[in-house]
């Protein structure tokens, strides 16, 4: 399609303006969200609320708002690039609806492709960036080929090309998540999506104040009053 002039993420002409206006180093994060029918009802509702909390928390921090970039891939029936990379200031949380099966493997692949593209744009525009995050939220198990994607994730983690986090909502197939992710996947406590996104935002704020390339110790999400996960 129209690569130069479409108002999306393309790295061409507009990208340069965007990056010239805001040359701050970026903290890219792509959310990979399960929107298959198993997420229906209160779950998707809480998730939608969580996304709004996420945006508000990021916006409350002037520096993080300029540095954190969010993208979103959903998989329910089919894989959709719901949100292309935007800085937190421009992030409009979409209202997600549930439908169809769980093509998790393809969704992760799409997300990792998006990270690749974005990194290329950063490099072309002389923008420093932190290690990108891919953040998977699911309550099911993939109904497509996920094994090839597992080796892609492991290779990416080894090369420090990105960090991959997996969060299982009740009903998720943890065995698969464990094989997919190089890090230990976490269970979400109940429907604490708001806490999850608060944690995500504050972790990213911490990262956005560190320096690209640094390991930032993350707050243990399984502990404390604001914890949202268990192992």
């Amino acid at each position: 399609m129209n690569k130069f002039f479409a108002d999306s993420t393309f790295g061409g002409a507009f990208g340069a303006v965007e990056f010239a206006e805001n040359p701050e180093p970026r903290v890219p994060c792509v959310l990979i969200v399960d929107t298959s029918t198993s997420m229906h009802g209160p779950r998707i509702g809480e998730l939608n609320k969580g996304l709004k909390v996420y945006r508000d928390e990021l916006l409350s921090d002037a520096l993080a708002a300029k540095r954190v970039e969010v993208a979103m891939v959903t998989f329910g029936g089919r894989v959709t690039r719901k949100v292309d990379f935007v800085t937190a200031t421009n992030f409009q949380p979409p209202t997600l609806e549930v439908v169809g099966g769980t093509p998790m493997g393809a969704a992760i692949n799409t997300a990792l492709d998006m990270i690749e593209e974005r990194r290329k744009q950063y490099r072309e525009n002389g923008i420093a960036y932190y290690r990108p995050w891919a953040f998977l939220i699911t309550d099911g198990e993939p109904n497509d080929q996920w094994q090839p994607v597992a080796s892609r994730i492991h290779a990416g983690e080894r090369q420090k090309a990105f960090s991959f986090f997996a969060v299982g909502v009740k009903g998720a197939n943890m065995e698969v998540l464990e094989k997919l992710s190089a890090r230990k996947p976490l269970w979400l406590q109940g429907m604490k999506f708001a806490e999850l996104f608060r944690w995500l935002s504050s972790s990213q704020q911490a990262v956005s104040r560190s320096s690209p390339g640094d390991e930032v110790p993350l707050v243990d999400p399984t502990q404390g009053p604001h914890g949202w996960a268990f192992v």
Partner: protein
Amino acid sequence: MKSGMLHEVVDSDGEKHLLDELIGKGGEGSVFAVDGKPALAAKIFHQSPLTPETMAKLQAMVARRTPGLDGIAAWPRSIVYSPLTNEACGIVAPRVRDARHLHELYGTSARRRFFPQARWFHLVLAARNVAAAFDKLHESNIVVGDVNQGNLLVDETMRVRFIDCDSFQISSGERIFRCPVGTPHFTPPELQGIKLRDVERTVDHDRFGLAILIFHLLFVGRHPFAGRFFGDGDQTIERAIAERRFAFSRDKAATLMEPPPASLRLDDLPASIEQFFERAFRQPDGVANRPAAREWIEQLDSLLTHRQGCSFDPAHLYDNRLAHCPWCRIEDEGGPAFFVLDGSASIISPQRVEHLEAQLRRLKYPVFPELSAQKLKIPQPIAPKRLQSYPRPSVADLATAALVGSGAICLAAPVLPWALVAGTLGSLASGVVLLASNVAMANRRERDQLAKELADEQNTLQRKGRAITAAHAKRQASFEESTAELKAEAAHYRAADNQLKDVLAVFRMTQLNKFLTNHLIFDHAAEIPGMTPELTSVLQSYGIENPLDVERIKLLGVPMVSDGLILELDAWRDRVARQFVFRSEHGVNFSDADGGGKAAVTRFKVAQARRILMASHHLDTLAEGSRDRLDRELNYFDRSAEPARELAKKLRNFQSARRPWERAINQSPLIVAAATLAGPAIGGVLYWLFG
């Protein structure tokens, strides 16, 4: 106060302070407003009780307070204690009000919001004041240590003040209280990757951070070490700092860096400032001679007296010693308007439009590099050359000679019958020798081996060549697509004068189509009465996925889809289309165009021109990048072809060193056998015919 632990603290004079709302939170403590005292803030440390080291440092700081320091920093006034335990728990310091973080001045979108009046010279002034604040500290032998974009606040008058002073490195008598932290993007190369807790910071270290802050201000947010990197691998700012790769430096050969697009250049500043940056950012090991804060004040003060307004755009201010306005240049390249007037864009001078117009007329579409098949030539075997002299004949040579001789003798069969017998015996004997002798076998093996290696290399090369051709073709296709788009956009620009409405209609259509295409039936089945998952897959199999496709259902006659459902789908499509909101192009919408206002046309054209120029710039880089890429790939191919060339040469040398007869006959056991039998066979035939 949120934590609920502490509501009131008492300072060393016994004055009580009631903590109010939380203003900020950091690694060491939280900062609160103080109830009823708007000019004060209290920082309460997370760690309690404070270590003796921290206590001593805070006491030393309070003791060092002077009016001079008060003028440039929120210097701690007093230590505060918890009334319950009487333990020290924090400090009170002045609260800097009506000021914002420095990054909210140099960051363009924040600046538009918080400092809408600020022009480039405001940033220069702020930089000057930052230098003055550093100068004051350095004069008092205080080192900031953790220089960063967050510990300085700037107000509307560009007055600058430090906050979070308790992390500074100060001395008290013999004792030095270190600054344990640092922000890597502001940390000099000599301290990169070093544990800062163990380092005594120097004024020269601070001067590095100061130069980075000044750079951020003068270059509207750019970091001096973030640029395009030509070397291998990913470049981080820390690595660039450590390797002194100042992206804006003139010495590109050393830095392998280029400034990012749409940015100010080093030569837009006076030469003295340019040298200051080179001195600050590329100082070699073992030298401590970065420009001092005082020197910066002098240079920036001088720059402030050379102010020039741009004749095209009054929001553009620049150094009057420059021949051209750098902000216009950036905009002409399609970069952003870093500084705009309030109510913006409505005031566009006619010259500016003419100028852009001229730029567009000069616009050249770059040429994509060609890949000729010649460049991907695969080395082939070379014919052996004739030597003047050969080494001493080997067994194989002798056997070949005997074989040829015996064959010749066989031909005498019609005249001398016994010659056939002798020739045959000779042929067989020499043939056997040629087949079985070590030398002959080694010759065959060696040749086969070389030939096989060469063939393998050729295969590999062929694959590489194909990959290069394919990658090039892909890049070319994408380039050509982009060129076509650019031409279409240029046509929109030209059409704007007479048919702005039509042009907008095209944009609207494109947007609407994109909006509809992204609205999948599949995702919204619930909104369409009668739609089931099964039906969505049926529709999908007919290629009907989004509202735009709905029209085609009637033509296709999709089974299982009732007329009622088609009506529902139609209604749904209309509902979706109604949700669409046209994002006006360049702030120009239909009502503007309707008004027939010339202003709207101008606004549209200026923005569109910029967009085109930027895209053409991008095309140039694309073509250039592809050329570099192709050169690199061809280079790589050439290097990869080296073993094949070597092998071809080796094979030739080997073959050349063999006597031609031996080389011709001793190729393989089969040919040797054929040659052995050929003489007797022909001799036999001749005998039978003529004998």
